[in-house]
């Protein structure tokens, strides 16, 4: 169990990116998605597990995800997978975040007199 949740102010757009990345090659249901995020980020990114569903519903509404109902161990599950529009959105989000991460890294490495940062988008 995570000791604390990640500051929500730094999480804007991150859940979307992680979810699209996770679902890029395989379909998952909510519980699996949360476990996968925790495992693959070494629990650095931790949010209330239930808040993943509004993000999933929003992405599905936008056409970035599609869902289907399946049964596991006698229980009904909703499996999500990425659509073509979702793949394009993932590519855009990834490019934005890579640029942003590089800029922040550059800023931190440069210390107090760091170089000016170019806008990333």
């Amino acid at each position, binding site marked *: 169990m995570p000791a604390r949740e990640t500051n929500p102010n730094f999480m804007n757009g991150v859940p979307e990116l992680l979810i699209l990345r996770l679902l890029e090659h395989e379909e998952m249901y909510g519980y699996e998605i949360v476990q996968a995020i925790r495992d693959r980020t070494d629990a650095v990114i931790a949010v209330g597990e239930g*808040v993943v569903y509004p993000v999933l519903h929003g992405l599905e509404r936008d056409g970035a995800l599609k869902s289907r109902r399946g049964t596991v161990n006698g229980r*009904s599950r*909703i499996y999500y997978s990425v659509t073509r529009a979702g793949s394009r959105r993932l590519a855009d989000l990834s490019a934005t975040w890579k640029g942003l991460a590089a800029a922040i890294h550059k800023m931190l490495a440069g210390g107090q007199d760091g170089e000016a940062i170019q806008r990333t988008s």
Partner: protein
Amino acid sequence: MAKQFNELRERLLRAGVAPRHVARYLRELSDHLADLIAEEERGGRSRADAESAAMRRLGAMEDLCRAMTEQRRLRSWSARAPWAVFGGGSLLVLAAAYFVACAYLWFLWQVFLPGADTPFGQRNAGPIYGWQNICFQAGKYFYIAAPVLVGWGMAWVGARQRVRAVWLAGGLALIAWMGSTAHIQASRTAVPGGLGHIRMDFFAPGQNLAGMLVTFAIVAMPYVIWRWRRAESLS
């Protein structure tokens, strides 16, 4: 847990989230919670400890609610544009119901009374329990009941989506106004070709105020009873 989910449902509906998204969200949260409890129990916790740990992991009520309400695209049309749904929408639905009633009347007129100038006031319409009379009576009762059926439908939508009572009352008043002032005329000779012409008029000023009040009372009654019983169950 059921109590917390009920509270979450109420808060989401009142915030304007569409009922289908609320229902799906709660179903997924419930499944997720069951998985978390099972995981915690596998880790050696007692049932009670597993449940409280699972609830903590699922997220605080405030966070679960905010995460959903921040997704503006999941809001219902009743929350986004109540004036359109309960204003224009209610009138359009009632107009559609009247259109169906008129089309049905025109069809019966062509089939059963091909020579008559109007389908109204015909006394030679066959035996009272005959097929012809039953068809005409069914159409008449649909025409009379249309405002009540549409009003009840609107009230059901409003109750289901926890819409503010003022919007619903406005919509029901419009339905009652349109329904109580509806006037239908039919004449075969009004247009050339003998196909027949059916015309409806609405909203004539100063007409049938008592009818409007009665219609409003009938369409609003189930909603008022629902509100009253809900308030009693919450208190």
